[in-house]
């Protein structure tokens, strides 16, 4: 497939979002190019499977294309896209009935190997967390969201979010202790 020239290379994101909101296909393609790495990494941390993560990321972008005319503030595109991603991930969990194990910290092996390094070890450690706990931990530590924002985004009670993050963080600290010793 031939790629259109990147007409929006240096344009501010809010401007590109405003153009995409009006139905400009090339503007949306520029947004996909800009945000794909961030979104795919988020989905990879959430599900631990690069193939599934890319499928879900594609679904998120498709939803974004469908819903972008209703986005009120172009400047809030990033948080809006993250909300779509969280909803897509939660829908996927519901569809696969994965929420049943949310209260137990069972050991789960990472399904698909990542290239060796921090990403693989982190994904392996994350894979030991129940899906919803993992989501809360990723949103907190990777995206820097507050407990309240995570509760809003996931529709979970605030106390549950705090508990998930506390337990998940404790487990990650234990599993990734080697890295923590290296970090000054």
């Amino acid at each position: 497939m031939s790629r259109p020239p990147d007409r929006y290379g240096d344009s501010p994101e809010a401007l590109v979002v405003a153009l995409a909101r009006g139905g400009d296909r090339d503007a949306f393609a520029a947004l996909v190019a800009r945000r794909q790495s961030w979104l795919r990494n988020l989905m990879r941390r959430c599900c631990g499977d690069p193939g599934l993560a890319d499928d879900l990321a594609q679904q998120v972008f498709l939803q974004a294309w469908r819903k972008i005319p209703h986005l009120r503030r172009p400047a809030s595109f990033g948080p809006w896209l993250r909300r779509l991603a969280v909803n897509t991930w939660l829908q996927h969990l519901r569809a696969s009935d994965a929420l049943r194990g949310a209260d137990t910290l069972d050991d789960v092996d990472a399904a698909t190997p990542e290239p060796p390094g921090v990403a693989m070890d982190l994904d392996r450690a994350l894979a030991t967390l129940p899906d919803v706990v993992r989501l809360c931990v990723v949103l907190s530590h990777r995206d820097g969201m507050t407990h309240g924002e995570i509760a809003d985004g996931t529709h979970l009670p605030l106390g549950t979010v705090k508990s998930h993050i506390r337990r998940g963080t404790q487990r990650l600290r234990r599993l990734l202790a080697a890295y923590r010793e290296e970090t000054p």
Partner: protein
Amino acid sequence: MTDDRDLALQALFADAERPLTDTAFADAVMSRVDRRRRRTRSARICLGLALALGAWLIAPTLQAVAHLATQAVTLPLVPLDNPLLAQVLAPVNSIAGAGALGLAGLWHACRSIFA
């Protein structure tokens, strides 16, 4: 801020980020977007055609109803034998006239009550 913010973990998450900028993914997304656009356009064309066909089918019925309504509203309320008087009073001595007078009265009443 969260209570469990852990700088070392945050650094690990940051280190784990891979620059995923391959064009295959973006191309796949845009090809699905293009498919959706084509489907949406086709659906709109079909809907437009269906509406046009529907309008064409019910147009005679609508026209007949409109014709009957037009005739009905000009019927005199009180039959007058004098043709000159009937013509002078026609604007008020009809269903349409009575309706218009009624609406004007209602509007004035509403204004006097709610103003």
